[in-house]
């Protein structure tokens, strides 16, 4: 008998086939259709902006991250997501800076993958929003000439973008908030509206997210509770004053709600670990979105709502610790 060189590993000796990099790369994969849609709508600008944001994220991860952390795919997700929430006409250097900030100050400073509090992509965007408010709120419209850049993408680093002859329009939410003008629901759901690169095609995002949810790569409870909360609040408000408050479908499909709820809020690292926590988290985001959109100074609040709830996640986790099997008060609330 040939005795093998025995290996000793820890139990369990079986494991689920999913691994962290696999999950991450699946998310990247599922983002490709959304990226495709953004390219379809915004042309070469979309490619450039998403590439620049991703490059910023990857370079930072490569320089400051731990060895091999580039391969786990998380920096890639951050980069692509950041690219998808930027306007098409933004100068590339700004997109790059956003990626650097998101990864550097949003993730690596906390110790890298798994340790961060805020969603790095959104933190990067929030930084850009605060740093370059004008560039971040200039929304180019879809052009007949697909090949034309949608803004001064190629502005020199640190320099202001030049005025480029590109038509801009307000986002559906902006139109609603500042001009009380609605937008056709078909255009909304298909994505043919002004807005960030990847946030417009709501239906497509839902499909991609559905794929991830089926594979259990995202917790469906978060988007579900966000949609539910936003829908319930908007239906109620719409019933109270239809002229002032838009209807639920508009609220759901406008702005970054789809992208935010499906891809940003569900970032595993920055969302609660307990399922009850996820419901609370989603409710909080939905509530804040409605508050900021309807009573705040900004037309869109998904990014800030998610960031604010990110900050609350440690607290939610604390408050929703599961009740151990057989512990006291068997009727206490429990996670499903």
């Amino acid at each position, binding site marked *: 008998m040939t005795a093998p060189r025995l290996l000793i590993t820890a139990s369990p000796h079986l494991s689920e086939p999913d691994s962290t990099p696999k999950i991450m790369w699946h998310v990247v994969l599922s983002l490709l259709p959304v990226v495709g849609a953004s390219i379809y709508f915004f042309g070469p600008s979309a490619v450039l902006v998403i590439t620049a944001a991703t490059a910023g994220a990857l370079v930072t991860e490569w320089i400051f991250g731990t060895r091999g952390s580039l391969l786990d795919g998380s920096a890639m997700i951050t980069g692509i997501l950041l690219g998808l929430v930027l306007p098409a006409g933004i100068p590339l250097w700004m997109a790059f800076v956003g990626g650097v900030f998101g990864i550097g100050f949003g993730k690596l400073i906390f110790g890298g993958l798994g340790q961060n509090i805020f969603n790095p992509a959104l933190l990067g965007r929030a930084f850009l929003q605060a740093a370059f*408010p004008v560039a971040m709120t200039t929304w180019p419209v879809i052009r007949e000439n697909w090949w034309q850049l949608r803004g001064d993408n190629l502005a020199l680093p640190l320099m202001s973008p030049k005025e480029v002859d590109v038509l801009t329009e307000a986002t559906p939410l902006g139109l609603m*908030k*500042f001009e009380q003008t609605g937008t056709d629901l078909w255009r909304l759901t298909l994505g043919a509206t002004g807005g960030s690169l990847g946030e417009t095609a709501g239906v497509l995002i839902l499909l991609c997210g559905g794929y991830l949810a089926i594979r259990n790569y995202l917790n469906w409870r978060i988007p579900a509770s966000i949609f539910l909360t936003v829908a319930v609040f908007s239906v109620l408000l719409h019933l109270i004053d239809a002229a002032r408050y838009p209807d639920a479908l508009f609220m759901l499909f406008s702005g970054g709600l789809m992208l935010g709820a499906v891809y940003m809020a569900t970032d595993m690292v920055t969302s609660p670990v307990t399922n009850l926590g996820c419901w609370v988290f989603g409710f909080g985001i939905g509530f804040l979105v409605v508050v900021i959109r309807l009573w705040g100074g900004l037309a869109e609040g998904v990014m800030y709502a998610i960031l604010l709830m990110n900050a609350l996640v440690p607290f939610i986790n604390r408050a929703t610790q599961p009740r151990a099997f057989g512990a006291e008060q068997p009727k206490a609330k429990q996670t499903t």
Partner: protein
Amino acid sequence: MTAPAPPPTKMDVPVKRLLVTLATAGAVAGFLIVFVFGWTQPIIQAYKAEQLRLAVQEVLKAPDRFDTLYVHDGALTAELPAGVDGTTLEQVFVGYREDGERIGFAVAAGEPGFQDIVRLIFGYDRASGTVLGMKVLESKETPGLGDKIEKDSAFVLQFDGAVTPLLGVKPRDATGDLHEIDMITGATISSRVVIRIINNTIERLGPLLDAYAASYAAATVP
């Protein structure tokens, strides 16, 4: 660091000396403050008055002189009854041309803006319902965007000659109507705040201004 270390000298100092020293120190401190107050206050007051004059000057298009009116008892009055402190009352300034003719009123007002309260002063000709000029006194709007209400002369100059009630429109929808104010792209809220403050203030003070103008006319027409 703040552990209460009992001072070793506590018992050594006679109470009388302690009191005297403290009193002296207090007196010196008080003297110092009063001295500096006396020195700085005129300068500060002069500066404030100058600022106010400049602001009124700007929004009333260089009046020859202006009077301060107080909103008291639901009416505008230049003379306050004795015992009423004018500094706590809302003030309206009325400017006159060289020939003594009234140019209009300058009113300061504020409302919540994008970040915090926006305060501005505007000149207003009640008879024609025309805004003469507008100047933002205080705002914390977003630099580069919302602060254009203060710094973008194109926006500010639109108010000269605009007719109330003002109406904010997007630049490309502008029709040239005198009620219209082109809003700043991307800073709709801040633009609206300015417009709203003026409209609200006029709505609030309009009757008072009318009443004052009527009494003024009655007084000047012999």
